[in-house]
């Protein structure tokens, strides 16, 4: 592929617009590190998005956005696949076989469409509503656990096999929030007895150098999560927004309490 050799010989600069607490941003940072690609990073204030971000991602106005040779690539899952396409000589994130690729994409969509919002719902609620959300998370984790135990990913160290791949990056960059949310809400999400394989995978993932380099320190995440939870519960309760969070929620608070998961995604507290 001409383009790929071009990239290897005359690398155009890579710039990533992101947010430090956004797991979608972490996915791209991790992928770039796994592939050994140098990049410039620009932190975006999601409460006051830069003109550059709005220009580069006019459709969704979100981070992350990867800029390569002046061209913008939004959406983490699109970016990850772009990295494989544009740098085929680096370690691939997606598997080679078409069926395995379909499986990786399926579970990645599951993570973003089902598991992530369910975890967000736990974080944004209390009482009975939260209990229902927790049950949903457990149902979702059970499906993944089953795949690890005797399904598509049986016997593997990582979802990608011996090495981390696409699905590990997507699931992993977000799963660190589980422990943080457990701490902040006092709710058990990943019981090592109920989900031993998922638990083991997460520990292996978090031990990797590139992952430790990418995921923010736990105390920063805890502080951030506490602030967001405080504010989300304040909004859901109908009391006026505290206004002390620097993130977008103050601006996106307009939708009524029916949308806690959406609010969670907007402020990039997601999985």
């Amino acid at each position, binding site marked *: 592929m001409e383009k790929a050799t071009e990239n290897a010989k005359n690398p155009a600069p890579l710039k990533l617009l992101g947010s430090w607490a956004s797991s979608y941003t972490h996915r791209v940072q991790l992928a770039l590190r796994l592939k050994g690609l140098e990049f410039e990073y620009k932190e975006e204030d999601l409460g006051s998005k830069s003109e550059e971000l709005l220009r580069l991602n006019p459709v969704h106005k979100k981070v992350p956005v990867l800029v390569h040779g002046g061209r913008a690539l939004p959406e983490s899952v*699109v970016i990850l696949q772009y990295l494989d396409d544009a740098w085929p000589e680096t370690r691939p994130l997606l598997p080679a076989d078409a*069926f395995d690729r*379909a499986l990786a994409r399926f579970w990645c969509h599951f993570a973003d469409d089902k598991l992530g919002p369910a975890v967000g719902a736990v974080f944004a609620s209390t009482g009975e509503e939260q209990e229902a959300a927790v049950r949903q998370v457990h149902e979702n984790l059970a499906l993944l656990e089953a795949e690890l135990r005797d399904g598509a990913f049986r016997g593997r160290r990582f979802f990608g096999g011996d090495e981390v791949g696409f699905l590990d990056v997507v699931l992993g960059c977000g799963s660190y929030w589980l422990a943080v949310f457990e701490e902040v809400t006092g709710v058990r999400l990943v019981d090592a007895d109920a989900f031993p394989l998922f638990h083991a995978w997460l520990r292996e993932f978090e031990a990797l150098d590139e992952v430790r380099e990418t995921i923010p320190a736990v105390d920063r995440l805890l502080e951030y999560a506490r602030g967001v939870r405080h504010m989300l519960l304040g909004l859901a309760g109908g009391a006026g927004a505290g206004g002390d969070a620097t993130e977008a929620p103050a601006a996106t608070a307009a939708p009524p309490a029916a949308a806690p998961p959406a609010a969670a995604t907007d402020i990039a507290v997601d999985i």
Partner: protein
Amino acid sequence: MAGEKRKGLQLLDFWVSPFGQRCRIALDEKALPYEYLEQDLGNKSELLIRSNPVHKKIPVLVHDGRPVCESLIIVQYIDEAFSSSSSLLPSDPYARAQARFWADYIDKKVYDCGTRLWKTKGEPQQQARKEMVEILKTLEGALGDKPYFGGDEFGFVDVAFVPFTAWFLTYERFGEISVEKECPKLAAWAKRCGERESVKKNLSPPEKVYEFIATLKKKFGIE
């Protein structure tokens, strides 16, 4: 019997599903023979539940006994597993990324907003109408003056969006949106796609879609 792996391609589908139609169009574009298996969604078959245990939804493509789920994943699978015939995704990495971005946009926006157009009334319906016009205009912007979303060739994004053109009539009648008026380029693109064999064969006639939705509305008590 349970251990036997059927050879070839089967598509578990539901006649009016735009998601299923994406797969049918892709299979025809790649000239791949397959067995179409209409599913009763009110009484899901053991085959469907076994093939898609996580979501229990159509479409599901079964290839030599192995299921692939989710329409855009199926279309990509078809493109990658049968790569000798003409490609639905472009070869240039950036063009591929753009194709995936717009297919993802269509997935995130069109069906959900379309559903709210016919399922709601009053203020929520007004909101849905506003959003749908915005979505269509955004897509028209992405199309530009090109014959197809991917350029000169019918491709991935066209496959992703074309089944929804059969729903324009329904949007018009229930949602009072004229695609012809709001997005003439998109309407022209729809007509152009409609001339392809794969599209002609697999899209539901717009009147049938409308009848189907009208029946659902009655069932849900939405008049």
